[in-house]
């Protein structure tokens, strides 16, 4: 009894997407969401060896900043949790040390954004360090969290039921998310989230469409949205398989 799912993209970019999934139970939708936030492993710097740091910030503060820089995640299977990659940085002032100044020992793991300032260096100040990036899950620290602002909302169906009373005041009717109007998907941002803009002078009824969820997914640049979603699904599936195998014994 394989369930029938239907996925439709409303908005699609490399790092940001909105898509509608029909036929999912709330429990399953939430499982996917939670897996995206906490269970998809990403690379992040988690140990730094300072060779020289004469900047105005302490070693620990700089190490924290380095940890939060998103690194590209190698394709599945190349790395497992616990593997490390070394990145080196050597910048001398005056000038700013950027995430793009990191030199990685592995082409697959490098800063996803090159323009993040790490520390402003004054005349004669220098930052030289070696950093180890490790693969881990969002559950252990936020720096390993690949999904940013991941969430979902019910798809809402809007129906025009008649005309608004002649003497009734026009009040804004705010809805956020994506609405379905006669089978057509419309993001509410198209009409400023106000139904009275789209249906002037009409009386409308809105209801949640059962088991239809609009996911909003953004990534920090570690991987594409597609990658994040499929890896989250994989992580759930792998656990189901593990349980199945364990019970069979």
């Amino acid at each position, binding site marked *: 009894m394989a369930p029938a799912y239907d996925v439709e993209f409303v908005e699609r970019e490399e790092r940001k997407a909105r898509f509608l999934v029909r036929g999912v*139970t709330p429990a399953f939708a939430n499982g996917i969401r*939670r897996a995206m936030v906490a269970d998809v492993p990403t690379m992040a710097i988690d140990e730094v060896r300072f060779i020289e740091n004469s900047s105005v910030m302490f070693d620990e503060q700089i190490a924290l900043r380095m940890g939060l820089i998103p690194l590209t995640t190698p394709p599945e299977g190349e790395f497992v949790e616990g593997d490390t990659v070394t990145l080196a940085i050597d910048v001398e002032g005056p000038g700013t040390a950027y995430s793009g100044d990191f030199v990685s020992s592995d082409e697959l793991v490098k800063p996803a954004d090159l323009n993040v300032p790490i520390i402003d260096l004054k005349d004669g100040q220098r930052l030289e360090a070696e950093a180890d990036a490790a693969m881990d899950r969002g559950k252990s620290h936020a720096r390993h969290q690949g999904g940013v602002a991941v969430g979902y909302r019910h798809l809402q169906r809007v129906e025009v039921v008649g005309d608004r009373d002649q003497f009734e005041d026009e009040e804004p009717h705010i809805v956020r998310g994506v609405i379905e109007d006669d089978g057509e998907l419309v993001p509410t941002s198209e009409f400023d989230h106000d139904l009275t803009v789209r249906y002037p002078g009409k009386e409308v009824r809105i209801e949640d469409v059962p088991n239809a969820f609009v996911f909003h997914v953004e990534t920090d640049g570690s991987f594409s949205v597609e990658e994040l979603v499929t890896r989250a699904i994989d992580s*759930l599936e792998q656990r189901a398989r593990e349980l199945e195998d364990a019970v069979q014994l």
Partner: protein
Amino acid sequence: MELRVTESSENELSIEIGGEDHTFMNVLKGALLEHDDVSAATYDMNPEQSGGQTDPILTVKTIDGVDPLDALEAGAATVREKTSALREAFEAA
């Protein structure tokens, strides 16, 4: 994933599932409840700060003549079917 049976009878099973959290347990519970031969399924889990039992304990009750362990296996299979169906639908979109 470490499993430890805490209580077991003909139609009822309590099992501790080590290392899992709400992410998987709620999906599994939802899948179990979709089966007609499962009369009740729930899980109990304490927050990390509580200091006691923190791994989730899943309890499954089945109708007469059905082994709860088999029902659990079928539940896990349902989750697997759901994930592969969703992956297919997602990759098709």
